[in-house]
């Protein structure tokens, strides 16, 4: 981008990187790309009961030039694929893509001539979100995992090279585990096998 690409590695850049990533993840405006039933869950996520605005995603932009993250919600037909690519190209950098639902992620149950078998054929995808359709909590979980990824993004080519060489990836921890206030008193569903860090499944928990 500018000066930071020519600077050597140092403590200043690490702090700037954190600050830049924090500002980026704290106000991501979504470009809606609702194509099917997943869009209903996406709208529900934006509405009062789940309130996407808590994560700085105030406004679903129909204008790709003012958006940071594209939520591809629904099955993409072959005819829609060029439109999807154009909307993605019109978004300004930095930009991210969430592939919401199984149809967007891999074609889902529509394994036929009309549907693109995964939007990663058309645009680079950052987070795959399975589910048919995913419930609003799953979308929020995907967004929070994307936040974690953005916080680990390197600033400048030197740091990007360092990160590539170290081979570090962002761990995909379930959000209800990562942000739990009291891990012993979890009400919601837990992954019985690992991923939760050995936290037992609580049955019939109340809110």
């Amino acid at each position, binding site marked *: 981008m500018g000066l930071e690409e020519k600077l050597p590695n140092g403590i200043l850049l690490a702090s700037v990187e954190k600050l830049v990533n924090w500002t980026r993840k704290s106000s991501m405006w979504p470009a809606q790309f609702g194509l099917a039933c997943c869009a209903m869950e996406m709208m529900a996520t934006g509405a009062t009961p789940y309130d996407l605005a808590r994560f700085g995603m105030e406004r679903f932009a129909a204008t790709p030039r003012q958006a940071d993250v594209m939520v591809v919600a629904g099955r993409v037909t072959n005819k829609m694929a060029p439109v999807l690519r154009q909307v993605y190209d019109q978004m300004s950098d930095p930009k991210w893509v969430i592939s919401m639902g199984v149809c967007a*992620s891999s074609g889902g149950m529509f394994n036929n001539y009309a549907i693109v078998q995964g939007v990663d054929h058309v645009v680079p995808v950052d987070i795959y979100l399975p589910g048919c359709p995913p419930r609003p*909590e799953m979308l929020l979980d995907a967004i929070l995992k994307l936040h974690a990824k953005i916080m680990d993004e390197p600033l400048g080519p030197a740091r990007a090279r360092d990160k590539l060489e170290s081979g570090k990836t962002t761990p995909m921890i379930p*959000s209800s585990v990562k942000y739990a206030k009291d891990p012993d008193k979890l009400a919601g569903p837990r992954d019985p*096998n690992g991923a939760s860090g050995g936290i037992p499944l609580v049955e019939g928990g109340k809110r």
Partner: protein
Amino acid sequence: MGVLDPLKGFGITFATMFRKVATEQYPEDYRPTEQRYHGRHQLNRHPDGLEKCVGCELCAWACPADAIFVEGGDNTEEQRYSPGERYGADYQINYLRCIGCGLCIEACPTRSLTMTNFYELANDDRQNLIYTKEQLMAPLLPGMEQPPHPMRLGEDEQDYYVNGPELARKAQEEAP
């Protein structure tokens, strides 16, 4: 139209501040799913730890999205994973295809495949979303033993299918 009418509107906005918040604070606090929510799958075990899956592939045949891959294997006396002749040697579910319809659960003849309430599956890697048998197997509960091991609760698979729980209870009473 009175002079104070516009203020009434603000009054509603003001009063809303004191009402209960409807928003679910998802990552910290949230409602549990319904008990029979179609979440991630699980492959269950018999009370002694042997796998319930017999590798019949009925789940894979029932799946409308072709998300399940099963490969059966033959049990031998030395290498026994499930009661009976066959067991699921390889088992994979592609969560990028699975639509959570539950037809596989209905198709399963031994009640091996069920669904948990876990749903936070999002990942940044396609490969990680193909769950393998190790990830899908139910955890070993107390009293269970990691297969392969011989049938502990009965002579043949009929004992397991017909009176599995009673035999498990009897074995537990005898053990300690």
